[in-house]
């Protein structure tokens, strides 16, 4: 069995590692790119959200590389993610790709987690439950490590002395880790690069603007679809903070385990003034994280969402009020396969201008006070 799976940011790293550890051949599709989106768009329903299109493209590219099985998380929810795999299976069937789908439901309770383990067991015939649980544990750890590495780069990038160093190193990191097999070796690479990133020469005292990325999780994590927004802002000298990550998402799912406490409660509490009930997707996170971030001194937020994304549209309707009442700049960027580089950049630059001005006024206020 050769398994492929769709991308979501860098989640491929722990997923591949887990398959390696279980002796299952993993077929990594190339990172999402122009061709991925083109193939995906061609065979997907026109009106569906862009994550679906890219994911479908990933699957096809995986099949082209020889995969005969697709592994995907599904999960029931008001959001479409849960139904992606069913429709994708139908589409692939209709165009004559003979692949099997293995899906695992979200694991937000013990039964779900058990089902997930059973699924993995099924796939990897010869492994014991203990081995599988251990592998899941390793996967969880690596997911965190990779997310932390990305956070680190977001701190360093705006402050690096030699422009482009972080990006170059990150490129090398991905190239290397893709070719590495198994937990130990992959962990070594992560450690090596953590060391290298930490040793990049930076301007310690640089006072950077701090912008939070909120919104629909896939569009935040998949840099191809957000046109590499983290890199762009970072290279403009802005510190970017992803306010949603795969590791936090998984942690929330596992929240039912007593000793794993996610930030969920805090986020919900922060959001309560504007939205006091989770309505699906990440809408409540969008609101809660903006309020939390505002209190923590962020300078502004960029709200990313795919066109027609239902939960984020609800969140989007609340944002103008928050922007006014909390006096915090927020920019909503709606993404689809037609999003053009130029218009996108113009909007971001105009937004950064506003954020910059606000910061200057604030700083002046401070100085006046101290005088």
């Amino acid at each position, binding site marked *: 069995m050769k398994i492929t799976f769709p991308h979501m940011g860098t989640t491929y790293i722990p997923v591949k590692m887990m398959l390696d550890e279980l002796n299952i051949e993993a077929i990594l599709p190339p990172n999402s790119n122009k061709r991925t989106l083109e193939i995906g768009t061609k065979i997907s*329903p*026109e*009106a*569906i*959200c862009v994550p679906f299109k890219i994911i479908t493209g990933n699957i096809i590219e995986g099949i082209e590389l020889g995969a005969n099985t697709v592994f995907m998380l*599904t999960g*029931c*929810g*008001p*959001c*479409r993610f*849960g*139904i992606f*795999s*069913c*429709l994708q*299976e*139908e*589409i692939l069937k*209709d165009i004559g790709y003979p692949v099997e789908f293995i899906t695992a439901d979200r694991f937000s309770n013990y039964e779900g987690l058990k089902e997930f383990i059973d699924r993995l067991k099924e796939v990897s015939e010869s492994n014991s439950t203990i081995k599988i649980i251990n592998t899941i544990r390793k996967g969880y750890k690596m997911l965190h490590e990779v997310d932390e590495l990305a956070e680190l780069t977001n701190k360093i990038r705006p402050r690096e002395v030699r422009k482009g160093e972080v990006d170059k190193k990150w490129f090398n990191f991905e190239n290397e880790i893709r070719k590495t097999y198994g937990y130990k070796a992959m962990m070594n690479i992560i450690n090596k690069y953590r060391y290298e990133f930490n040793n990049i020469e930076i301007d310690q005292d640089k006072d950077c603007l701090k912008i939070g990325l909120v919104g629909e999780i896939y569009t935040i994590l998949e840099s191809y679809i957000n046109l590499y927004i983290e890199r762009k802002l970072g290279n403009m000298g802005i510190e970017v903070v992803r306010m949603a990550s795969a590791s936090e998402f998984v942690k929330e799912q596992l929240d039912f385990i007593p000793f794993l406490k996610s930030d969920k409660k805090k986020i919900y509490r922060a959001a309560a003034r*504007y*939205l006091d*009930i989770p*309505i*699906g*997707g990440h*809408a409540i996170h969008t609101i809660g994280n903006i309020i939390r971030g505002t209190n923590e001194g962020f300078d502004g937020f960029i709200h990313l*969402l795919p*066109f*027609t*994304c*239902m*939960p984020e*549209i*609800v*969140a*989007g*309707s*609340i944002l*103008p*009020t928050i922007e006014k009442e909390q006096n915090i700049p927020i920019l909503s960027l*709606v993404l689809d396969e037609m999003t053009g580089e130029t218009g996108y950049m113009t909007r971001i630059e105009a937004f950064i201008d506003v954020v910059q001005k606000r910061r200057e006024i604030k700083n002046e206020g401070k100085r006046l006070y101290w005088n």
Partner: protein
Amino acid sequence: MKTKIGIPRALFYYEFASLWVNFFSELGLEVIISPKTNKKIINDGTIAAVDDACIPVKIYHGHVINLRNKVDYLFIPRIMGITKKEYICPKFCGLPEMIKYSVKDLPKLINTKIDLMKKDNLLNQMLEVGYIFINDKKRIVEAYHKAKAIYDYEKSKLKLPLVNNTNNVVIMGHPYILSDDYLNMNIKAKLKKAGLNYLLPEMFDDDILTKYAKQYNGKVFWYFFHQMIGTCFYLLEQKLVEGIIYLSSFGCGIDSVVAETVERNIRRNCDIPFMLLTIDEHSGEGGFNTRLEAFIDMLKWRKQNENYISPYGNYLYTR
């Protein structure tokens, strides 16, 4: 003077009208329902709502605007789910927020949570609504039962006695699109005029649809998906219709999945013509009519040439 409560004639109004209206009247309130959708309502709603909302939600905003100065209360329940274990569109759960933050000068809102996903406790939820107006449990319960009886009767009246006549076309889509004749460009009258009978998913028995929905081998977790896919398999088996029209809303996240799944299953399994018509606030009636007429002509032509076999394989469809 009686207290006035307003109900926007949009979205789930079409599903629950008789229940809500009668319940509030029984409680002694004056119920005011916004007029049928018109140009002004659509325009007002489009301006007020967030840009990326679908038209049904924009229209809802328009109806709220129409009512806001005429009533003391507006009934905008937070509907989480209307059937067991099945989700509905997240916009229904967030509707109170969308309205609150997009429409100014609102009267008092009633945003009681209606959630029938876990257990069927509609009575308790309506009790909560009733207590806002009177502190008399007995009367509220009575009002509820009266209204519920009328509601159930009205629902049953919609159901189709199983007749197997010809000239039937089914129109699929969200009930609030199929019931709003301004929004659906009077499609029902147009079909009638062309000598066709129309069937709607709500005319089929729920139990039958549930049974047929099981034929779909993927997960069915939206109520609407279940209704549509059930209708689809039911029609495939019963051969009740000569054509299938799916009316979808531009910008609807659910339609994009459901319409595609329905279309694929129909095309794979039979040769009944299928047409997907998408409505948005800018689409003119002209283009809509042209496509509808072409579809109707094709149905007639197929009828006259019953033995005709499509040169394109075993299905015929337009898009």
